């Protein structure tokens, strides 16, 4: 009897690796809901549709960036270079193709940025998979190199005034919904599909969960690693473009904190730093929780001096609570 019953449950959990992952995501949703109620009670402004859309808009870029980070963390790695890569690729596009000038090609500019991101990711991936450098070291080096290149490229200048159709990507609205929200939803969907429904995604989980057993089962571990870092580089570059489009300005340094936020959102979303455990839908919830916390602090008039310290403390508590509940089983 019980057997049948449990099997039914596993089927219902669908694409999730195990009922446990499923329940872990459900508990995260519950946390999100709790936070939502709390914020709604603390400030009437929170529930205004304009504010809610605002939160989503702010969370959207972080969500996109964190999707890539989730894949990397699922392999048991980490990528410290995403913020710098986002900056470098968008600055290069801004500088080389003058996306701001009339007559320039948006398409070419976007393609260049993505290519730069892919190249950075490729170097990261090769260093991790082939040279066997620890991901922390490899991507830390890449972060410094990319930062340096951004500075070399445009120095202390700010490039601004981009074409309207380019800015639409970051600041446009369709039917009352900002474009970045739609893009974020699409990216989460695509990455979820890739990670849960493809052979490649399975390799990612297997590599992170037990590299040696995966290799001995014929999983193309090295190739999966390189692909993940390339994909992450592309996503970072894409996020950089969206930032520039939204701010209508590119300057070296706008992405300096992004990698840490992306790591935080991923971990808040339930991914294990040791690899093999986690899910992009969880990450999206994690990013949303982080942005809601910031939004709530703003609405309640908490000084920006306090906000960073509080955010940090909340992240630690959230992950702690998760770990404790996992240990209890």
């Amino acid at each position: 009897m019980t057997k049948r019953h449990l099997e039914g449950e596993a089927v219902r959990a669908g694409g999730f690796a195990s009922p446990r992952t499923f329940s872990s995501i459900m508990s995260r949703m519950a946390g999100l809901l709790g936070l939502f109620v709390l914020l709604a009670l603390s400030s009437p402004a929170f529930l205004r549709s304009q504010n809610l859309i605002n939160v989503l808009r702010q969370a959207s870029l972080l969500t996109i960036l964190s999707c890539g980070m989730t894949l990397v963390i699922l392999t048991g790695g980490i990528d410290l270079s995403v913020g710098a890569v986002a900056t470098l690729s968008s600055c290069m596009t801004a500088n080389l193709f003058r996306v701001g000038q009339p007559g320039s090609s948006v398409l070419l500019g976007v393609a260049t940025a993505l290519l730069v991101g892919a190249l950075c990711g490729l170097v990261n991936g090769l260093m991790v998979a082939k040279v066997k450098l620890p991901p922390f070291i490899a991507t830390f080096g890449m972060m410094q190199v990319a930062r340096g290149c951004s500075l070399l490229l445009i120095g202390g200048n700010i490039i601004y005034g981009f074409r309207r159709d380019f800015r639409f990507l970051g600041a446009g609205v369709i039917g009352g919904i900002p474009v970045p929200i739609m893009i974020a939803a699409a990216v989460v969907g695509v990455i979820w599909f890739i990670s849960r429904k493809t052979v490649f995604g399975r390799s990612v989980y297997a590599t992170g969960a037990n590299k040696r057993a995966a290799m001995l089962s014929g999983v193309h571990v090295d190739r999966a690693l390189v692909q993940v870092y390339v994909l992450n580089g592309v996503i970072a570059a894409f996020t950089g473009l969206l930032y520039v489009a939204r701010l209508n300005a590119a300057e070296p340094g706008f992405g300096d904190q992004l990698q840490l936020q992306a790591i935080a959102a991923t971990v808040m979303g339930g991914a294990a730093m040791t690899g093999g455990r986690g899910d992009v839908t969880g990450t999206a919830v994690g990013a949303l929780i982080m942005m809601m916390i910031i939004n709530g602090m703003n609405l309640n008039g908490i000084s920006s001096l306090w906000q960073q310290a509080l955010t940090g403390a909340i992240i630690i508590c959230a992950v702690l609570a998760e770990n404790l509940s996992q240990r209890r089983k």
Partner: protein
Amino acid sequence: MQCPYLVQLKGICKSFPGVRALNNVDFDLKPGEVHVLIGENGAGKSTLMKILSGNYMQDSGEIILGGKAVTMDSPKKAEESGISIIHQEFNLVPQLTVEQNIFLGHEPRCKMKLFPNRAVSRSDAGKLLERVGLDVGLDERVEDLGVAQKQLVELAKALSLDARVLIMDEPTAALSSREIESLFGIIRQLTGEGVGIIYISHRLGEVHEIGDRVTVLRDGQGVGTMNVADVVLDELVRMMVGRDLSEMFVRSRVPAESGRKIVLKAERLCVDGLLDDISLEVREGEIVGLAGLVGSGRTEFAKAVFGVLPVSDGHIELFGERVTRSNPRNLIRMGVGLVPEDRKDEGIIQILSVQENITMASLGRLFPSGIVKSSIERRTTQKYVDMLRIMTDSLGKQVCFLSGGNQQKVVVGKWLCSELRLIIFDEPTRGVDVGAKAEIHRIMDDLVRQGVSILMISSDLPEVLGMSDRIYVVRSGRTVREFARDEASQEEIIRHAMGGESCAS
């Protein structure tokens, strides 16, 4: 009034979500005896011992130490009460020295309690090593020691805590027969000093050799406790599984024909420092046994064939073709699979599900488009779960929650799913209970009847003799003798494996 028992466990019950692990189990231990605890994997042996050593809390029932009921709520508490457990996987820090490991967590201190008292710890460590009969330097790093030596370091560590109760979980699983002998000597010496030993084992032969009393667990319940002198082996097996010993080996023989195709041929295969001239052949539909001492190069040979260790000289032919690009991916594509000795680190992926583990090696074949179709995956997995009788309550269950035998079946399922022609089994039934062992043998037999070839590495001689069509003996990285099935005997194999008088290492 002196209590005759060191430990009494009364009416212990423990449930995990969905499973009743222990149901009203009684167990006791007297000073100076070896009490053997046997039962199939998943029978509740480790759970019971984890309760005694403070890793789990029982749901109900009593733990009585020397006549007093206690609450065993942490491993620290158990340690202080004189209970030490030696796990099958050692709890040693490989980078530290022997001495540091022995006193890890309870280093002798100087008066001020600030600094370690080196003089005391050195002399104590020396005495402990002498007591367990281990002849290595105190400053030797643990990672440089062999398995048997590590085990003795564990033992010394337990003794340094003044253990009155010693729990040993399959202490002989990775030892050679000579090492087992000396371990038994130490156990007898300890019991002579009044230490009580709880001895968990899958090797039934050891029950008579070392045990005073034996308790059998089945499905979380105590089936009985007896004096070892009063029981015979077959009876124990029946108590464990409710089945006869004669059912253990189910090999159905097909008359051997010489015309069968050669599937694997290794010629003068060498791996630097590990293998030095291994030559053998495996034919279609054959089980070839590879016997030898632990460390003789059997596992290394399997790894060299599977492309994990680099071949320095000689060559390998598979299905008539010389292997050039040797890596696991390529070999799997050619139709070769390896069921590794180290199941937990190399065979299964613990945190992934049964389903993900079983389809792991055949994703490319099942889903050529690169997109995983859940319905196909589920149907495929269910087929192997049914065929191999893997006991799991769902396909999505994480493999780490299965018992050892079922985990091994998952590894086998992974290779069946990828439709191979040659499977190398390295210690297929180590750490697996009697019932699952018979089933794995049945599966191997089915496989060869379907034309799959098997190379089986095993330290279990009855298994080698019972299952193999031909047997090669390996010593010091060389194949020293080939036997046809009916010429081989345990004595002959051991004689060749040990090299007559001198034991090659």
